[in-house]
């Protein structure tokens, strides 16, 4: 009887070793809907503010496609930040900065042209 119990214990321990030898399941991820949450990163917050200001200044008229791209980028950055992809978020923030600068310059140029048009 003891021998039986010994063999049983030996088999169970061997099975446990086999299972323990497998990769562990990763942690649960987040950030999939981070655009619905608050922005915690300072740089991202600044960019969001620029984006909001650009929209208020008529970016949807003077740089509509760029505004869509910027919105997309902003959403991606917020997801990446929330999902822990900090490096990728930093790179995308660089792209967003360029896009925001482009939008702002177009808004400025369009406002000058519209003022000239009103004068003439």
């Amino acid at each position, binding site marked *: 009887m003891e*021998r*039986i119990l010994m*063999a*049983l214990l030996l*088999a*169970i321990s061997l*099975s*446990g070793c*086999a*299972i323990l030898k*497998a990769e562990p*399941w*990763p*942690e*649960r*991820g*987040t*950030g*999939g*809907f*981070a655009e*619905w*949450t608050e922005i915690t990163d300072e740089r991202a917050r600044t960019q969001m503010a620029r984006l909001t200001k650009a929209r208020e200044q008529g970016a*949807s008229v003077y*740089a*509509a*496609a*760029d*505004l*869509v791209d910027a919105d*997309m*980028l902003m*959403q*991606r950055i917020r*997801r*990446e930040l*929330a*999902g*822990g*992809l*900090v*490096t*990728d978020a930093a*790179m995308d923030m660089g792209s967003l900065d360029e896009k925001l600068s482009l939008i702002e310059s177009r808004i400025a140029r369009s406002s000058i042209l519209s003022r000239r048009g009103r004068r003439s």
Partner: protein
Amino acid sequence: MRIVERIAAVLFSFLISFATLAGEPETKLKIGDVLSIELPGEAAFGKPFQIDRRGVIQLPEIGEIHVKDETLASASASIRNALKHAFRDLDKLTVSLKEQKLLVSVHGYVKNPGNVELAADATVQMAIVAAGGLMQGAQLDRIQVKRTNGSSQEIDYKKYLDSGDMSLLPHLEPLDVIFVPASPLTGKVQIDFDGKTLAAAGDGGEERTAVKVFGEVNTPAIFAWKQGVTVIDMIMRAGGITRYAAPDQIRIINKGAPVIFNLASYLDSGDRKLLPDIEPGATIFVPKQVDEIRRGALTVYVMGEVAKPGAFETRDGATFIDILANAGGPTRFSDTRQIKIIRSNGKVEMFDLPSYTNGKSGAPPKVSAGDAIFIPEKSDTQEPSWLKIPSSRAVQVMGALYKPGRYEWSDDMSLFDLLAQAGGPTAHADISNIEIIRNEKDRAHPIRFNLETYLKGGGSLKDVPRIHGGYIVMVPELSQDPVDNKAQWTRQAPEKSIYVMGQVGAPGRYAFKDGLGFLDIITAANGPTGSADLRNIRVSHRGQAGARVTNVNLSLYLQTGDERLLPRVKSGDVVYVPDKNRESIDQPPSRMVRVLGAVTKPGRYQFTDDMSLLDLLAEAGGPTTDALQDRILVVNLSSGQSQAHAFDMLGFAKTGDISRVPVVRAGDLVYVPNKNQDEWRQLREEARDIVQAASLFSIISALGLK
């Protein structure tokens, strides 16, 4: 007594006769002689008694008595004898020769023809004068004097007039008949004409010897030949040559033998050897200049549409305008824009006279001896003979014009002039692609001109291609039907086409031109189909230095209206609208998310940042029944920071906690494991196997122990 009277009379007659013989020779009375018969106391005498044409005189109371050819003495005796019957005391009768007269007749071309009474020594000239003089048209060199004995003598009265030689005129005798003939030039019809006309007609009365001078002389006529006369004399008599005469080609026929006389050479050299003799009956013909081919060291030829074409002698300093003016100037039928100067060395130069007169071109060409100036005829646009315009002066206009054809060209004209002359482009003309083929050195070089852009936007006139003679202008035609143009696709040049492929209503090859846009061609192709992937329309830009492809997100354009999203397309570009339902293996991985494992439709899916993991799973048909739904794995692939996270879909569905949804980006991987991959389950199954094995081993051992 009577006997005594007779003896006395005979004695008297003898004495008279003797006295006459002793004093002067006895002359016989002639017709016309005038006798003086005196008888004192008788009034019937004392007047002259002229011997009339019959040779008689009329004596009073007696009548006629013939005294012609009698001597004066015999005549006196005869008179005395006749008078003794009617008169007494005839001793005092005296008969003397008072004077001698000449009775002749003048007929023919004299003013008062008839009998004339002349002095005894009168000449033919006096007779003619007595007859009133010559009439115009009298032939002077053939005046005839006819005697009573029937003889006739012809005299050259003109020669007498020229020389004064009296011997040329015959001594007239009574009853001579002088006949003045009419010149043959007077013709057979009597007309009154003046001396000028008569002189102009010449004086050649004798056809056998007269010299005929005609052609380019001022008064062609027949002239009398004279010994020693020269061709110069005859030409001078004919009034000299006209300005149209060819003085170097004067033709003379002497006794049937032709001779060419070069008056110009004679005048240049003065060599009398060059002067041919003129034989009686010679013919002199002075031809026209144009009848002969003139050539010389100083000759310039003017041909074509001028008033007086021909060869002209030029001198140093004579300009083109001088020569043209001497030729009478261009006629109204001339095309003065295309004057050709054919040089003596064979080269041809063009000259535009209207352009010169308008001050647009420089000096007229210098014309040298041996050159030829040709003024062509102005061609009519309706002229059926197109061969009259050489290729160098014509432009061929073809294609979609109302009046295509071959048009005469002048470099003063422009392309617009030509198109207007051709009736202008038709409604189907593609004026944005006018092709101009210019010929240079037997090679054709095409030029393309966008008339539509020029007309809309304007521009410098220098931008308009210059047209020259020999060019070809082609105005292409637009495709009649852009959809069904298979039969005519070869007529559409590739460089004028744009290609539309993929998910559009009517893919194909479309005529395209500058000014049209991306939406134009998409719309022309009936727009995208329902399965078109509007986010990934691709435009391949051809004809550039390098390859360039633009990805067009038409969906975003339709969403935002931002024109900057639409690419600038040109002829030759290719537009491809992909199918969104097609497995997009050609999509780059950076735009795709791979969904693997226990899902209904595993595969690659397009992913944009506005999508989420839930969208992906839905796109992939959702997890299968054996999916391990609480451990869906998301692998974020990145060059700098790759990581994996799990997603508990079951837990998310139960709670709705959005923070439990992991981030997914394009390029990431989603793996949905199945339940067999759960470790605890594996552990349970393995434990169950072990227990079963142990149970079996225990049973066997127990049986063995017993």
